[in-house]
C-alpha cells in the first residue's frame, strides 16, 4: 500500500480529519484563550486585556472550595484505580484463557457494568452504604464506583489481547524448562506490557474525570470533578478556564509519559 500514490480519497479524508480535529480543539482553544482573560474579564468573549491573573488566582486560596485538596484526592484515587484495574483485569484476562464455570456470566456482567448508567450505580452504592451503615468516602465507595467503570474497559482490552496471543511462545518457554511462573514473568508479561500500560492509562483517566459515579458516593470530601461542579455555583471568573487549561496540560503530560513508557518497554523488548 505504501507504494501507491495519494489518491483523491486521501485528500478528501485528510480534509475531513482536519475538520474533525478543528472541531475537537475549537472550544478548547476558546477556553485556552479565555483563561488568559484580563483581570476584569468574564467567562465569555470579548477579552478584556491579556493577563496571567487567573492562573495566579488558581494557585491562591479561593473564596470557596479547595482545588489543591480535591486535585490530590483525584490523583490518589486515579492511581489507586489504575493499579487495581491493571492487576484485576490482567488476572481476569488470564482466567478467561481457560474454560471455567460462570465465565460467560462473568463476561456479560463486565459488559453490563459498562452499560449500566453511571447515575444508577452512584445512587445504588449510596443507598447500599447508607442501609448497611458504612461511611461513604472517596477511597471506599467512590473507589468501588470507579472500578465498575474502569474494570470492564480493562477486561475487554485484556480479552482482545489474549484472544490473539499465540500460546506458541509459552510452549516454547516450557519446552526450554521454564516453570509456569517463569513463563509468565519472562515471556507473557513483557509481551503484553504495552497493553497493560494502556489499561492503566484508561483506568487513570476514566477515574480522574468521573463525575456521575462520584456524585453520591464521595463522602465528606470532593474529588476534582465534583469540586469543579461545586465551584460553578459560586465562581464566575475565568479561573475555571485556567483550571481547564491546567488540567488539559496535565492530561497531555500523562499521555506523553504513557507513550514514553510504551516506547521504552518496546525498545527494551526489541533489544532482548
Amino acid at each position: 500500500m505504501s507504494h501507491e500514490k495519494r489518491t483523491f480519497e486521501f485528500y478528501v479524508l485528510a480534509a475531513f480529519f482536519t475538520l474533525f480535529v478543528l472541531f475537537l480543539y475549537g472550544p478548547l482553544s476558546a477556553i485556552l484563550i479565555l483563561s488568559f482573560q484580563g483581570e476584569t474579564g468574564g467567562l465569555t468573549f470579548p477579552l478584556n486585556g491579556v493577563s496571567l491573573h487567573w492562573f495566579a488566582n488558581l494557585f491562591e486560596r479561593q473564596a470557596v472550595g479547595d482545588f489543591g485538596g480535591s486535585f490530590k484526592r483525584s490523583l490518589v484515587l486515579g492511581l489507586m484505580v489504575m493499579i487495581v484495574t491493571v492487576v484485576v483485569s490482567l488476572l481476569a484476562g488470564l482466567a478467561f484463557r481457560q474454560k471455567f464455570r460462570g465465565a460467560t456470566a462473568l463476561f456479560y456482567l463486565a459488559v453490563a457494568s459498562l452499560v449500566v448508567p453511571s447515575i444508577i450505580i452512584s445512587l445504588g452504592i449510596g443507598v447500599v452504604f447508607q442501609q448497611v451503615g458504612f461511611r461513604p468516602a472517596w477511597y471506599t465507595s467512590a473507589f468501588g464506583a470507579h472500578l465498575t467503570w474502569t474494570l470492564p474497559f480493562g477486561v475487554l482490552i485484556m480479552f482482545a489481547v489474549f484472544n490473539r496471543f499465540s500460546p506458541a511462545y509459552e510452549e516454547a518457554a516450557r519446552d526450554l524448562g521454564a516453570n509456569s511462573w517463569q513463563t509468565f514473568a519472562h515471556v507473557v508479561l513483557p509481551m503484553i506490557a504495552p497493553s497493560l500500560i494502556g489499561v492503566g492509562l484508561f483506568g487513570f483517566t476514566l477515574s480522574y474525570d468521573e463525575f456521575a459515579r462520584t456524585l453520591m458516593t464521595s463522602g465528606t470530601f470532593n474529588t476534582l470533578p465534583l469540586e469543579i461542579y461545586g465551584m460553578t455555583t459560586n465562581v464566575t471568573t475565568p479561573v475555571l478556564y485556567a483550571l481547564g487549561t491546567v488540567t488539559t496540560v496535565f492530561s497531555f503530560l500523562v499521555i506523553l509519559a504513557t507513550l514514553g513508557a510504551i516506547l521504552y518497554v518496546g525498545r527494551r523488548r526489541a533489544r532482548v
Partner: protein
Amino acid sequence: MTVALERPAIAAANPSKRRRFSHGAVTPYLQSAPLALILGAFLLLPIIMIVVVSFWDYDFAAMYPDLLTTNYSDVLGSWVTWKTYLNTIKFAAIVWALTLFIGFWVAYFLAFHIRTTAMQMVLFLVCTVPFLTSNIIRMISWIPVLGRNGLINSTLVHMGLVPKPIEWLLYSEFAVVLAMVHLYTLFMVTPIFNTLMRIDRSLVEAARDAGASGWQVLWNVIIPLAKPGMAIGTIFVVTLVMADFSTVQVMSGGQSASVALMMKNQMSLLQYPAAAANAVVLLVLVLLMVAGILRIVDIRKEL
C-alpha cells in the same frame, strides 16, 4: 490503541482459537475472583438495592420497605415518561449516527491512509488529548463559542453573513447534540480504529486484484470486517447518551428533558423510590438495546 500496536507481533495468531492449559482447575477461579467480587459488591448489590427500593413506599420525609407497584405505574403511566424516553432515544439515535459516521471515516483515514505506525499513533493521540480534559469544562467551553455574542455569532455578524445573531446555536437541541458528539466521538473512533488495524491487508489486495473498485472494497470487505468495532462503539455511545443528564441540562439551558435528568429532579426532592423505579426502567431499556447489539455481533468472539 495499544492493542493496535500489538498487531505486527501477533498477527499470525489465530484469533478464534483459545487454548486450554493444564494449570490446576482452581486457577481460573482464583484469577477471576477479584473481578467477580468487585462487580458483585459494587454493581450487583447496588442494582439489587435499587430494584428493591423501587418497590418501596415513600412519603414526605422517609422511605418505607414495602412491595408497591405504584412507583412503576406512576413512571409508565405518564405521558411525560414516554415523551422523555422518546426524546432521549432521539438524542441517542442522532448522536449515534453522527459519531458512527465521523468515527468510521476518521478511523478509516488513520488505519488505511496513514502510512507509518508512528504517524498513526501521533494522529490518534491528537484526537485523544481533548477527551482527557474534564467533561464539565469541555461542555462549558462551548458556551462562549455558541452564545448570542459568542465567537461564531460575532464572526458571522461581523462578516455580514447574518443580520442578527443566530439564536438556536446555544440552549437548543442542536447545542446538546453538538456537545455530545464532541464528548463521545472518541468512544467510536477507538474501537473502529482497533478493528480496522486488524484487517489483514492481503484481503484488501486480493479484492483489488480481483477487480473490485475502491468503493466495492470498502463496502464488501472493510465495512463488514469493521462491524465488531462499530458495535462496541455503538454500545459506548448509546449507553453514555441514554444516561446523560449534565450535557442536556447545560447545553439546552434546561429546556430539554432526558431520562436521567428526570431522575435527578426526583432525587433533588429526595423521592428515591420514584427515581429508583425510573432507574430500573432505564436500565432494562439500555440492557435490551445492548443485548440487541450483541445478538448482531458477538463481540466476545470478535474482540
